[in-house]
């Protein structure tokens, strides 16, 4: 067991351009690549993660020179020349591999730190590997641990809490104003691409209906069709504003199209129902003074950008906390693994003691002619002598503070107790 290595090889969005990642032989599907990996000589357990941003192989292998080369060959196939491979590939062993896996699971290694998708992808990949029975005790423990580390990071840090893109930020703000978006009406002023993107996000939150107003009605109708909404000409803007809850404005107009004074009577007509304006046009469409009106909330593109920046710096702070958790958990896992190394020796030690006890008891008891009760007492005594004698060497093996010397300790105990036979 101590000679097995946890080996992690992979490529991701940081090391490898998409064009190369697309060509990877292991990047498609799970069943066949996993099978091929498992057939590599020396591989005991294996697992493959393949997402659009990364392909990673995790393997418990009896390490010889060929394992790494064979995996690399499988990973790149014929798409990348062998001399090119090293600049894309990263390889980690043991503690580093565990650490990297935890970094991936907690999304600290993701393109967007804090995203929640990766954990699902990890679980999916693990499911494929377990279904084919390619994982064993170590990988099972390791992957389950990575899930719980990801959970711990989510609950103990705010890493996934804040929105780091403009359309996310808009949705988050809308939710702070309206609570739920489900019965809300969205009004798009102008049929630009940015507005479309933002609206897509809102529609994803299940808004009630979308209305598009535009100078040219036909474009408004095209866009409205995409959201199952309705279209109206720009002249109807004011009356549409009486119904809308969230307004996204992105016209190419050179001047402001909605002034504070225009909005006052509209707010009266709305009976002060709150309204959220998002102005993503440059130059701006909406009078900045709108924000001074009660129950009117106006955010322009700079405001949203600021929200995103603040969130990003918040998230970076949280990422440091998360990293500390990952470091800690990786070390804990290493400790578990090291503990595993002494298990066969402890078992052998106990077995030897047991065998000696049984042998000696048999020889002694048949000479003594004792009653069954007395026999039991003698048996008990023998067992407790042996277990008391074993207590110290076992504690010595299990001791946590000098795990790095485990191999020496194991050798010593094996030599001292004559456990030379390999298990």
């Amino acid at each position: 067991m101590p000679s097995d290595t946890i080996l992690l090889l992979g490529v991701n969005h940081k090391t490898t351009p998409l064009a190369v990642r697309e060509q990877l032989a292991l990047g498609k599907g799970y069943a066949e690549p996993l099978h091929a990996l498992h057939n590599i000589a020396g591989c005991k357990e294996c697992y493959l993660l393949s997402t659009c941003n990364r392909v990673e192989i995790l393997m418990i292998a009896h390490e010889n020179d060929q394992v790494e080369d064979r995996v690399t060959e499988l990973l790149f196939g014929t798409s990348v020349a062998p001399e090119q491979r090293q600049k894309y590939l990263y390889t980690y062993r043991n503690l580093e591999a565990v650490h990297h896996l935890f970094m991936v699971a907690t999304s600290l290694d993701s393109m967007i730190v804090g995203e929640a998708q990766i954990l699902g992808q990890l679980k999916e990949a693990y499911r494929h590997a377990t279904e084919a029975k390619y994982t064993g005790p170590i990988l099972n423990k390791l992957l389950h641990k990575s899930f719980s580390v990801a959970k711990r990071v989510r609950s103990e840090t705010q890493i996934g809490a804040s929105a780091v893109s403009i359309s996310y930020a808009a949705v988050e703000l809308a939710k702070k104003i309206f609570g739920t978006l489900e019965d809300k009406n969205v009004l798009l002023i102008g049929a630009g691409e940015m507005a479309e993107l933002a609206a897509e996000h809102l529609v994803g939150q299940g808004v009630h209906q979308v209305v598009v107003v535009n100078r040219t009605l036909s474009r408004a109708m095209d866009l409205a069709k995409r959201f199952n909404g309705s279209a109206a000409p720009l002249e109807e803007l004011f009356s549409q504003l009486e119904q809308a809850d969230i307004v996204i404005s992105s016209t190419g107009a050179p001047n402001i199209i909605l002034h504070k004074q225009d909005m006052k009577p509209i707010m009266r007509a709305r009976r002060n129902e709150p309204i959220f304006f998002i102005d993503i046009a440059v130059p701006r469409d909406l009078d900045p003074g709108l924000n001074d009106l009660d129950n009117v909330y106006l955010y322009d593109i700079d405001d949203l950008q600021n929200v995103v920046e603040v969130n990003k710096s918040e998230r970076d702070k949280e990422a440091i906390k998360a990293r500390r958790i990952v470091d800690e958990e990786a070390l804990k896992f290493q400790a578990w693994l090291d503990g595993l190394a002494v298990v066969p020796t402890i078992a052998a030690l106990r077995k030897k003691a047991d065998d000696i006890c049984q042998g000696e008891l048999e020889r002694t008891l048949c000479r003594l002619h004792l009653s069954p009760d007395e026999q039991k007492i003698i048996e008990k005594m023998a067992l407790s002598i042996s277990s008391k004698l074993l207590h110290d060497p076992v504690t010595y093996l299990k001791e946590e503070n000098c795990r790095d010397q485990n191999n020496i300790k194991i050798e010593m105990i094996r030599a001292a107790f004559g456990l030379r036979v390999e298990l």
Partner: protein
Amino acid sequence: MMDETSHLLFYMVLGTSLLALVVYGVFFVNQQEKLRHLARKALLAAGVLQTLYILLRYFEAGYTPITSQHETIVFFAWSVTWAYLSFRWRYTVKNFGLFITAFVCILLLVASIAPRSINPLAPALQSLWLPVHAGVAVISYGFLALAFCGGIMYLLQEHELKSKRFGYFFTRLPSLDALDQLNSHCLAIGFVLLTLGIITGSIWARQAWGTYWHWDPKETWSLITWFLYAAQIHQRFSAGWRGKRAAVMAIIGFASVLFTLWGVTFLLGGIHSYAQ
């Protein structure tokens, strides 16, 4: 013996309420669900202990304990706690518990300073109307206190959204919509109870003093409070006074409640000022 039990029970009430406050506070900072459940249990325990304390005092004194300052404030805290707990039963408003518990703790701390002696009941108060009138009035204050706390939270959150600088409160406070709904629900219940409190008071006044309405300072200020809330509710339905304006009005209305409860007693006096 009973006296000692009563003191002990009061300190238990104070202790559990402060515990709930501390746990709600820690939850506010680190947002861990476990703590929220713990805090709610602590507050529920505090509510039960408050009830027991009031009952114990009822048996000790032989009348409904809403006459001295200490009794009134404890009853006020009790009504805020249970108004919140009954409310919470229907829906949750994020971190509302912290603000409510803080208010309850302030009340209880004030109550702990006020003399706790049990005085013989003034002859004018020896009536079945005491629990009805005073009870209903103070319970209405409980709901109005919820609207007050909600109003403060609304102003904090609105400030975050308007200033576009998201500080500490933005993620920790609920949506404006939730707070506005809270305001309208609490005011509706509080206002009905306040009206009942004034009506029962006036019937009792007819029996005790001979006329329905005396223009005693306490009566006058109750009426002012009532008009403040009535105007606000009327405006919400007719002119759409919601959001910030409703929040500000809830705070002003509650200031008037507090003045009716204490300001009148200590500054203006009058025959209604029993609790000195």
